[in-house]
């Protein structure tokens, strides 16, 4: 019989899913030109779920025979995902109206996607990981194609779908091999079965799972889809996708590798090392030549996947695992918040038919809209990792953890690529302040609130980072 504690481990998830299902039906009653009501309802659902998630702080447990776990890590990640969902709704509220995309499905699909991401953060069984992966991805495929019949958006949706389905195939094959080697899909069972199982098969299975999830987090060399999808998808969707899918993908990777495969640390760490280094180098180098802000941010998102992967390299080393997981989580927060802010500015400048997206369209922004330009400057500084921003603090913790893990070379690559990235991020700032131009922007209350919120958090938390880092440090993974 199911005990009540099974249920309470995933209570926020259940509430959010039920809310999404009901919202799908409620939306049918809302007249076509009043879909803002659906947006408010979805935000309400996310806020309620956020409250329930925060109430789970400090609790530990597992449910459904170890299919899902509740631990500090999952609470932290879920809270971040829900905030991302809220910011995603806030960015979309005016944007979809302006672009003529206002449909109730947007918000229900977004809720389903957040539910999938939350399940991914709590999943402790490879079957649940796979289901969560699909539940978060399918709504994202649709959202990427949401501006259909616009060709770019359709292309983005189709490309994302095809490559996403392909990568899901890798994940399933990896799960099958892990199952073949250990005879179970539960992470707890895998840990127990590892001493008596075929290492070769297990390693290849784990590598295939890494490849599949590597697609989701846009790590090089599985990043090919990212620029086109990020560019073609509606900007509000891209903002949510860049933050949410990355956070969920990393949380699943961290949980699977740190709890089930720590014994593969010696062989997999080198692979992860190369993956992280390659992702940072390629992402940052290609970003230099971009002249479209959406593509620039897409390559920036690839590069940041590389930085977060750094936190992941010492996963098999129990001495530094805790501090590197904490640094990774902190960096995810810093990236997610900065990312939403930067996309908020992009959305403010974007006009119909994809105009207002070239870097040249930012010329003169500093003179005409000083507040917006100041906010964009903060986000660019944060993406580089310069003071006084969250990006600096995040990189500091990250590099410290990586060096503590004994990977000095990787930290050096991280610092050097950050220097390279300064070139293209600062170019945006230079264009905004040094070049003459007549930019026009759209001012919408929720959009402005999101951008201002992101800018304030980026600056203020960087001045007092200790509480957030303390929370991230206490967000430990439940080990089996």
């Amino acid at each position, binding site marked *: *019989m*199911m*005990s009540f504690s*099974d249920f309470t481990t*995933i209570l926020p998830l259940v509430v959010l*899913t039920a809310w999404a*299902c009901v919202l*799908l039906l409620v939306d049918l009653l809302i007249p076509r030109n009043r879909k803002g009501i659906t947006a408010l309802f979805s935000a309400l659902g996310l806020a309620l779920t956020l409250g329930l998630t925060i109430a789970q702080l400090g609790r530990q447990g597992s*449910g*459904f*025979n170890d*299919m*899902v776990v509740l631990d500090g890590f999952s609470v932290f990640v879920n809270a971040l995902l829900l905030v991302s969902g809220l910011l995603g709704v806030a960015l979309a509220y005016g944007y979809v109206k302006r672009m003529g995309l206002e*449909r109730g*499905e947007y918000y*229900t*699909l977004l809720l*389903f996607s957040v*539910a999938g991401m939350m*399940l991914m953060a709590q999943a402790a069984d490879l*079957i*649940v990981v796979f*289901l*969560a992966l*699909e*539940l978060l991805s*399918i*709504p994202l*495929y*649709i959202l990427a*194609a*949401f501006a*259909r019949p616009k060709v770019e958006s359709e292309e983005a*949706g189709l490309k994302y779908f095809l490559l996403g389905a392909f990568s899901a195939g890798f994940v399933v094959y990896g799960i099958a*091999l892990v199952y*073949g*080697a250990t005879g179970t899909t539960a992470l707890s069972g895998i840990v127990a079965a590892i001493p008596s199982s*075929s290492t*070769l*098969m297990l390693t*290849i299975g784990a590598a295939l799972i890494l490849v599949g999830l590597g697609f989701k987090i846009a790590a090089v060399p599985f990043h090919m889809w990212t620029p086109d999808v990020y560019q073609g998808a509606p900007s509000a969707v891209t903002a949510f996708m860049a933050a949410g899918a990355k956070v969920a993908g990393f949380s699943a990777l961290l949980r699977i590798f740190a709890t089930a495969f720590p014994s593969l640390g010696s062989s997999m760490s080198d692979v992860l090392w190369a993956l992280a280094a390659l992702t940072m180098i390629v992402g940052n180098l290609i970003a230099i030549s971009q002249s479209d802000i959406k593509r620039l941010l897409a390559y920036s998102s690839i590069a940041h996947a590389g930085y977060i992967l750094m936190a992941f390299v010492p996963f098999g080393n129990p001495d530094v695992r805790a501090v590197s997981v904490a640094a990774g989580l902190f960096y995810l927060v810093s990236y997610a918040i900065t990312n939403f802010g930067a996309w908020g500015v992009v959305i403010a400048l974007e006009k119909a038919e994809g105009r207002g997206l070239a870097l040249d369209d930012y010329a003169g922004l500093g003179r005409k809209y000083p507040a917006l330009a100041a906010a964009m400057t903060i986000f660019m500084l944060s993406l580089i990792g310069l003071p006084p921003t969250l990006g600096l603090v995040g990189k500091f913790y990250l590099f410290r953890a990586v060096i503590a893990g004994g990977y000095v070379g990787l930290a050096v690559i991280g610092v050097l690529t950050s220097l390279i990235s300064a070139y293209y991020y600062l170019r945006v700032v230079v264009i905004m302040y040094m070049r003459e131009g007549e930019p026009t922007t759209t001012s919408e209350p929720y959009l402005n609130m999101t951008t201002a919120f992101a800018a304030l958090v980026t600056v203020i938390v960087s001045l007092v980072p200790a509480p957030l880092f303390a929370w991230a440090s206490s967000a430990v993974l439940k080990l089996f």
Partner: protein
Amino acid sequence: MTISQIIFLVVAGFTLASALMVVTTRNLIHAALFLVATLFGVAVVYAILQAGFLAVVQVVIYIGAIAILFIFAVMLTRRDMRDRGPQMNRMQWIGALLALLIFIGLSFLLSSWDGYSAVAQEMPADFDTMGRLGEALVSPDAYLLPFEVASVLLLAALVGAVYVAYTRR
């Protein structure tokens, strides 16, 4: 060689041959029909493995719904069913080499697995596969959560499919 081995070889050959035809035939409808044959071959393999429920599911879902969807999609989008473009490109030899390497690698991997040479046990005649599955799907100690998540996943997919395919305003 036992009878079941002979049956397996015949079925496997049939499945592989039709899979090859799927990618080589130039008529898209024929390709879809060969796909049906391939999927049917897989269903027979399930039946040989005594996974009766999976065999039926394979026929019901893959042949009954997905292959039909394929055929609909082909008929919807293409006025001309014959593909006249070249079937190979410059990378064909590299592709073939890669496929061969992956095949050899996977064969090696699977042959090193200790379950590879194990002989499957005959299931008792009164073994209630379907009942066991039904119990597992709704038992909180087994697959209750994936079962319900699957339902949510189907709902999300349905909403998405309807949104994408829907043309009327």
